[in-house]
């Protein structure tokens, strides 16, 4: 503190920026003259202001707990008084991470994006200045380096020029000169050539200005609509009317929980307009104006409104149990980066970009030694990337109990050969429509969601699929196949005038599909052969006809390598059946004709 007073003393011109890093524990001497410490501070602040100096004071808090010495309390209040000066930033930090973040070596003098009217209505305007509040600080763009210059040449630039040639697609040797080229824009599949004259017509003609569209409830503008880096609207400096109008508007909006929607064109003739939202910010100190933060909102064209399944309507076994929810509540509550009475950790204002930090360090090293390796991440910035071990240790029991509550199991990627899978599906569609109708409408989520452990007769296909999809045990696949077979037989046995055939057929094709996917062709093939002998020429012969009709046959080696039949054999299985059938029962054809006659010729 003493140091500060000396440094900023009179006569030290040209010293534009002072960093003060202190623990704030040193006592400030009273002035020899009859000034209070407060007066000294004010005097200093004035002086800083006059000299255009900047002061960044960072007070590092010791970790000694909540007790603050009297000296420290006094110093803090003095510094806070200091902070009322526009040139002074005072930061209190208690971690090394924040200390780094609080010191800003590179200072950018902000420039206004817009100066002019904020038009509430054509008759009522407020003078505003708009600045960028957030601007992404990027890593520099590096140029390409050429090592072709002879070594030792003192004036070699080592720069690289880029040459672009435009060539005809058909004739790669033909170069098209610049004046023979036209820009073309895409319109659907078409490329529309646009000359530079016409190109201008494509652009929207805009008039500079910021206009209010209206106010609306803050709840109508969700936080995640914000599209870009934020700006800030401040009243024109020195214009007391604007400052007052801002103050009234900001406070009224705050009270009503409203935001303002504005249309902005920052520069005359700018290529587009933006719509944004103004949210009020009430200055904490008396000598700073109230202002607004501005964020760009999306246009209709920018949004993709996908519907997502409601999380509340997911099946109950996906909902957290009471104890799981309690564990999550505890985690969210106690794994806290901003507990009361403590400095907020990882506040964006106090957290350096670890990549930039690392890059500049690397640049420095490389400058000293061309062979330098990339530096490791600064320890103080570890906590940006990884959870703070200190904090994790503190709440370890909460984290552990949360972890214990949930079973997370990675699912291995299925090694399905896609082409085959789809081919199979196609075949199935041709073969059996009604089965696919049921299957196609359940998504994978709902499959895994329902933990089905038996196949019921109400929706057997879904149950079957769901059982196959279960990953928690190896038992489910054989069980599902077993139960499905039984169900098909049961259904057929209970058939009366073919009333269960459709369902049986759906089940059969689902079973076939399942067996292909699960690599159990033999299960299906033996079943189909059994079924054939059970039905053929007996009471269920008409069902068998249906099977042949839909061309449901044995699973061949192409579909599942474990199969015992080749593709030809599989085809032969049904065509042989068919041929035999035609030969055997010529009489049946007549019957079918009669049926058709009954139905009329509508089909």
């Amino acid at each position, binding site marked *: 503190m003493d140091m500060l007073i000396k440094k900023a003393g009179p006569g030290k011109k040209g010293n534009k920026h002072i960093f003060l890093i202190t623990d704030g524990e040193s006592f400030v001497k009273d002035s020899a003259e009859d000034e209070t410490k407060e007066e000294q501070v004010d005097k200093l602040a004035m002086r800083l202001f006059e000299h255009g100096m900047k002061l960044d004071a960072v007070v590092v808090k010791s970790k000694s707990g909540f007790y603050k010495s009297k000296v420290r309390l006094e110093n803090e209040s003095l510094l806070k008084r200091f902070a009322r000066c526009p040139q002074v930033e005072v930061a209190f930090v208690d971690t090394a991470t924040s200390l780094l973040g609080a010191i800003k070596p590179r200072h950018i003098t902000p420039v206004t994006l817009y100066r002019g009217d904020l038009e509430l209505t054509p008759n009522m305007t407020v003078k505003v200045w708009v600045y960028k*509040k957030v*601007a992404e600080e990027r890593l520099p*763009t590096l140029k390409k380096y050429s090592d072709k210059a002879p070594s030792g040449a003192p004036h070699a630039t080592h720069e690289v020029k880029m040459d672009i040639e435009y060539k005809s697609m058909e004739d790669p040797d033909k170069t098209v000169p610049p004046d023979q080229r036209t820009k073309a824009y895409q319109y659907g599949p078409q490329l529309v050539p646009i000359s530079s004259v016409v190109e201008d017509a494509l652009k929207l003609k805009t008039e500079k200005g910021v206009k209010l*569209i209206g106010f609306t409830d803050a709840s109508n503008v*969700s936080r995640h609509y914000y599209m870009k880096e934020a700006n800030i609207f401040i009243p024109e400096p020195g214009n007391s009317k604007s400052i007052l109008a801002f103050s009234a508007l900001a406070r009224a909006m705050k009270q009503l929980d409203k935001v303002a929607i504005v249309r902005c064109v920052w520069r005359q003739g700018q290529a*587009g307009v933006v719509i944004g939202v103004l949210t009020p910010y009430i200055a904490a100190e008396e000598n700073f104006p109230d202002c607004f933060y501005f964020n760009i909102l999306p246009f209709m064209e920018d949004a993709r409104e996908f519907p997502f399944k409601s999380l509340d309507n997911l099946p109950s076994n996906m909902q957290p149990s009471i104890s*799981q929810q309690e564990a999550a509540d505890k985690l969210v509550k106690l794994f806290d980066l901003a507990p009361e009475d403590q400095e907020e950790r990882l506040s964006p204002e106090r957290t350096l970009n670890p990549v930039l930090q690392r890059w500049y360090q690397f640049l420095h090293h490389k400058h000293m030694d061309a062979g330098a390796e990339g530096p490791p991440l600064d320890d103080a910035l570890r906590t940006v990337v990884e959870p703070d071990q200190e904090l994790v240790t503190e709440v370890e029991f909460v984290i552990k109990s949360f972890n214990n509550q949930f079973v997370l199991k990675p699912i291995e990627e299925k090694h399905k050969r896609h082409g085959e899978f789809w081919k199979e599906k196609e075949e199935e569609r041709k073969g059996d429509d009604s089965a*696919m109708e049921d299957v196609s409408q359940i998504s994978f989520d709902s499959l895994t969601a329902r933990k089905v452990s038996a196949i019921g007769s109400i929706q057997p296909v879904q149950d079957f699929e769901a059982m196959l999809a279960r990953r928690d045990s190896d038992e489910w696949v054989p069980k599902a196949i077993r139960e499905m077979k039984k169900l098909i037989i049961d259904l057929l046995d209970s058939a009366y005038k073919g009333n269960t055939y459709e369902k049986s057929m759906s089940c059969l094709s689902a079973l076939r599909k399942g067996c292909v996917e699960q690599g159990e062709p033999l299960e299906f093939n033996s079943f189909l052969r059994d079924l054939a002998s059970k039905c053929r020429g007996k009471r269920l012969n008409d069902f068998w006809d249906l099977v042949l009709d839909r061309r449901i046959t044995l699973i061949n080696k192409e579909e599942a390598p474990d199969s015992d039949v080749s593709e030809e054999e599989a085809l032969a299985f049904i065509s042989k059946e068919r041929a035999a059938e035609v030969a055997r029962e010529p009489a049946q054809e007549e019957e079918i004709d009669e049926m058709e006659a009954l139905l009329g010729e509508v089909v």
Partner: protein
Amino acid sequence: MSSFSNYDRDDNLFGDDDDEEQEKDAYLDADVSRELLVYLIDASPEMFSPYRNQNENDVEETYFNAVIKAVTKDMKTRIISRDRDEVAVCFFNTREKRNFQESEGVFVFQASDQPNQDELSQPTARLIKDFSTINDNFDKDIGSRAGVTAGSRENPLYNALWIAQGLLRKGSVKNSSKRILLFTNIDDPFSDADPAFKRDMRRTTIQRARDAQDLGIVIDVFPLAQTGTNFNIGMFYSDMIDMTEEEKDNYVVIASDRLDSMVNQMQKRLFKKRTVRRLTLSLPNGMKLALQSFALFRPATPGSTAWVDSFDNKLLKSERSFLCSDTGALLTEPLLRFQEFKSHKVCFSLKELAEVKRITDIQLQLLGFKPLIYLKDYHNLRPSTFLYPDEERVSGSTTAFISLYKAMLRLKKFGVAFLGSSCRMVALVAQAEISNEFGQVEPPGIHMIYLPYSDDIRHIEKMHGSMESPLSKASDEQIQKAMAMIKKIDLKDFTYANYSNPALQRHYAILEAIALKEDDFELADPKDDTLPPEEQMLKPTIAQSVKAFKDSVYGPNHDLEEEEAAAQKLKGTAAAQKRKAAEDMASYDYDKYDWNELADTGKLKDLTITDLRIYLIKNKLQVTGKKDVIINRILTHLGK
């Protein structure tokens, strides 16, 4: 990690390439997001009955017309935001027939420049133009006819579904989604059918529709209610598209007074989900949740440009080569990169640069939670990304996700995490589901908001404070006046979806006109939705409250004061007066020199800059620049 190839593309080594990475990821899924679509439009006489369009001054319009407008708009939207979609337009209940099956009552519409187009195609300017003006020739070329009539066995709806299905045969279900959008205002298409055939017609049509659905085609019905009657979805269509009871109850019939909302509804159903990428959220102590991320908001931009040969309008390809500035030698990639540092060129290999950016291998690391009030309005860098659990990769993710989501909502907190791929801190903000009568407005899940670092934040609030005295703050009365005004200028149902980007709209409108070779393309100027409703703002009730607020904060004589200030300004500010004085001086001193002779003898360079400026000021030329520049300017002006 990012590959090196994209470094070459824009020379931007670090810039935005994590965005690019995301985009690239998106392309992986882009195939799936192509939509193949048939607009199936009822052209029966009922569709040509008029209704009153209350939104547009009660103009009478036909249902048919409203559908044409909506479909036109839909096609245009596709051009802007989904240019890989392919469409076909098919009318049914028509007098003429045109389709590959020669089925009665079905007419597949084709653009006039592609008469034999019998397939789906990306919408072209011509197709849209011809379609939007179809009314002019509809009666002549296509004609309307009642659908199913007594005594006839023709079933145009059945035929139309068959044709639509045929049109959609191209492309596999795997990498495209197929849809039929059916527009009609007749709830029972078979009401006039011969009782003898009615049941069968109904049955076969339903079967036809179901067959199509089994092939992975989604059928969306847009039922239009005729004035004074209800469209009973249960009559036929709910069976046709196999709705559940719940869906049936929630189905929105577009009432005749709200046909305009049809466009919005189509918009809502337009987009299929697109996974941007799969993410794994790591919790401390090694727990890992699988998530999917979606780009719900990304700025739409005018389509890409390319260079064409101006003789034949054929696409050109570009070839780049790198030359050494010092020697002119041709260089081959990969080259080193350099950064000027303390007037030295410090070189880096691409690998080293990539290494600097790679801080962690963890995709998304949870760091802790904070109360929502700590998320300031300016803590924003880019459009947010939406996260939803991915049960397919890690089972149990959904349950854990829901528990955290609920806890955050209840405790009003957000998660802070580190996103490894872009090296950014992000806020994870839970969003509860919000629905209205049209469906889901906000999907339930977690939005990932990109946070700035201290390097990115500027402290503007304190730049313009006053040192001496506290600034004036609004009094309670002024705040009251402001509140009264705010309540008057209130947008009740504000949603961004009401605002189209005027620049994009204009770009595409003009482009369309040029594509159609219309000469007066300047006429195609779409309405700008974003302009404030000035007429309303001047309405007495609003104007009064604004006036009250204005008088309260500016004082009653504000306008007068402003006028005086403006008048003062006209007389000249200090700077202007100074300039004037300089001009006077200049004309006085001007004659001291013989400028022509000085120029001829090359003696201009002997004068000082101040002297030279006299000439510039007198002749109203630009006065800035170095001495040689100024001399050159004078010589040029003298015509030497």
